[in-house]
């Protein structure tokens, strides 16, 4: 691990001032992802700005029913928060399906939003990777791509966004608040992560020097139930091969409202409006769920090793919906 300078910020203004719109600087909170990548030599910050002293550790219920989560709330604290377990169980399930106890104890909400891909080509500095080194090529497209995306990829990049938490948030609907020299601004969660397209190095809509201060969940959908289902090789401590966050509200046997988000198969936390459209107003039956699953994966690209993830993701959708409507 190369060396770097280290600074500690005490408030948000200080944080972005210290960062100074300097692309050789990075913020560090829990550090579980950043230090990993610095050790791998795939991120080489010259300066780290420690944001752990920022007053962003609160979870606050807003008057309009939304839940405002401080950037520094740990994954563990968020997963076990009573407001989350009761009103947003899908988020709690998603968080607890991710990583390990020790990592969740340290990883923060904003850090998880900023989590970078696990693509082994990205994570090895001697491999070609357009995300890490624009123009160097994509090792995965012609290489091993079992862990890669079938949705949202481009001819430049098929790296999967690895977060479980973000899939839960994507289904619930949320707003990301960022703050920087130009003041605070809000970004809908769905617009925050960017598709790779021709610029896979651009992963999110965060401007230089800005940092995330909060993630605010939309008010829960009245009467909705939710579930997060994660499928992987082993039973725990592994990134998703396919996962599904389902939020469904029924009127009798008819689906009034549905949110479907997918993980492990897409280049960003994937909200499937196609699946949601296929569900709304339909009876909550296996046939409907199958149609939704087909709709969600209609545009999927079956890369050599990842082709199985298309049927796997469909299964995740159908089972998650069956569970939540049971």
């Amino acid at each position, binding site marked *: 691990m190369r060396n*770097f300078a280290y600074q500690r910020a005490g408030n948000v203004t200080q944080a972005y001032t210290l960062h100074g719109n300097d692309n050789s600087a990075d913020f560090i909170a829990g550090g579980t992802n950043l230090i990993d990548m610095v050790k791998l030599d795939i991120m080489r910050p010259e300066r780290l700005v420690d944001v752990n002293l920022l007053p962003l550790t609160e979870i606050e219920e807003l008057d309009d029913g939304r839940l405002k989560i401080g950037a520094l709330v740990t994954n563990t*604290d968020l997963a076990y928060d009573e407001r989350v377990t009761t009103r947003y169980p899908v988020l709690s399930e998603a968080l607890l399906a991710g990583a*390990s106890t020790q*990592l969740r104890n340290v990883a923060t909400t904003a850090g998880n939003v900023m989590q970078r891909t696990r693509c082994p080509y990205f994570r090895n500095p001697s491999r070609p990777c357009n995300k890490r080194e624009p123009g160097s090529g994509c090792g995965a497209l012609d290489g091993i791509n079992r862990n890669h995306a079938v949705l949202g990829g481009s001819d430049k990049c098929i790296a999967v966004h690895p977060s479980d938490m973000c899939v839960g948030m994507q289904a619930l609907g949320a707003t990301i608040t960022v703050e920087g020299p130009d003041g605070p601004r809000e970004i809908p969660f769905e617009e925050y992560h960017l598709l790779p397209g021709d610029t896979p190095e651009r992963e999110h809509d965060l401007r230089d020097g800005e940092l995330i201060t909060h993630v605010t969940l939309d008010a829960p959908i009245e009467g909705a139930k939710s579930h997060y289902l994660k499928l992987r090789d082993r039973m725990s401590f592994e990134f998703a091969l396919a996962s599904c966050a389902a939020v469904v509200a029924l009127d009798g046997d008819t689906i009034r409202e549905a949110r479907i988000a997918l993980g492990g198969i897409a280049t960003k936390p994937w909200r499937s409006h196609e699946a949601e459209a296929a569900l709304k107003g339909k009876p909550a039956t296996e046939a409907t769920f199958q149609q939704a699953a087909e709709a969600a994966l209609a545009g999927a690209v079956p890369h050599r090793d990842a082709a199985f993830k298309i049927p796997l993701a469909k299964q995740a959708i159908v089972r998650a919906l069956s569970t939540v409507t049971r």
Partner: protein
Amino acid sequence: MADKDDKRPDHDDQGKGRARGVEIHDARAPSRRNFLKSVGATSLAAATAPAWARVGYVNHDEQEPQDKRADEGEAPAKGTQRITLNVNGQAHTLDVTPNMVLLDVLRHQLALTGTKKGCDIGQCGACTVHVNGVSINSCLSLAVMHDGDEVTTVEGLGQNGKLHPIQQAFLDHDAYQCGYCTPGQMMSAVAILNDAEVASDDAAVREAMSGNICRCGAYKNILSAIQTARKNV
């Protein structure tokens, strides 16, 4: 040792002290699991007494803990920052570069080699320690971010020469083979047993322990040991 607060710039002193960083007191409310409490490490001046200089497990190679510079009252060397780590009830003041990782500082500077390195990137759990009562992977944590923190390692589990109940249970159940992942397994186990959020059934314990890999595959006995120790913790 200078009083800790002396080297802290004032609240508004932002932008200064790039080399040493900017340390700000902050009144944020404590989080249940907030271990990153870099504030609140009050006077540890007493800890500079010579008694701690050689404490901790020093193996038979007689390595000295490398915190002598601070002990002798010198200013931190260029590029280093002075931190105090409270490890197993003993305060250690030492100078670290920003890229020094907690695990390496424990093992190299403090000769506390009970905490093991198995992957160095948070994928195996061998390096698990408690920081302010919470289990973390010490390989993914910068030492400089733990100024004032309370760290417990496997060397601090037992008290007064007596095995901690988890250690006794691991012994009785043969919950290890090579023993290399064992300190991490036990540190995770103790944290889980103290965590009301983790249910007591086998499946819940297995899930919560899954960040600790045992390549010898002594998982069955580890589970038995944890469930036995549950009665004594």
